[in-house]
């Protein structure tokens, strides 16, 4: 079946613009995660949803970052008033259950955001 998909794959924004990044998880997956991967670094956790509930947003770097998953499926990560330090690859992952710390997370290809 289809894996996790993300769109757009590439996004160029001028500093100060708002952007919206979309994630389509694997159908039926309860949990959804967003990560930020800066150049040459490992991904860093941003936020976590279980169905439509945002259970953890401890990794969001500022209040300019906002994520939602209103119907428990597709998720959108929104960044307001983008700054150059927001330039990174944004990764989405989903996993089957809502409770398993051993669950495998399946990753999408990412959206590469460049802020000029």
């Amino acid at each position, binding site marked *: 079946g289809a*894996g*996790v998909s993300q769109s757009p794959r590439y996004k160029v924004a001028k500093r100060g613009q708002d952007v919206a990044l979309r994630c389509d998880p694997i159908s039926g997956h309860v949990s959804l*995660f967003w*990560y930020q991967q800066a150049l*040459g*670094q*490992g*991904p*860093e*956790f*941003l*936020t*976590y949803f279980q169905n439509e509930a945002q*259970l*953890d947003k*401890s*990794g969001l770097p500022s209040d300019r970052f906002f994520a939602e998953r209103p119907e428990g499926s597709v998720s959108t990560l929104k960044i307001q008033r983008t700054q150059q330090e927001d330039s990174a690859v944004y*990764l989405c*992952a989903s996993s089957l259950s809502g409770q398993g*710390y*051993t669950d*495998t*997370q*399946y*990753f*999408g*290809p*990412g959206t590469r955001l460049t802020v000029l």
Partner: protein
Amino acid sequence: AQSVTQLDSHVSVSEGTPVLLRCNYSSSYSPSLFWYVQHPNKGLQLLLKYTSAATLVKGINGFEAEFKKSETSFHLTKPSAHMSDAAEYFCVARAFGGGADGLTFGKGTHLIIQP
């Protein structure tokens, strides 16, 4: 809280020789440990995971890793490297009951395969 340290940022081996990618973790709680691989312009793919069952874990493409609690290590090995193994490898932890719900990634090890 947990942390993951990958001891080498780059590892270079010749095709057909063994691969060793080193990882140490720190966690106040019983962790689940994973190795993911990232090929250029492709998504992260799970190689293997440790979930407190057998300490020697076998994964895809001939990779395996051994969980050593006394050494807080989870090194990744492969007996014979193939050119297609060239990629970025991430050691990853997730602790039960340990706080943030996401995965904690190491900084990655870039594996280079010499012909």
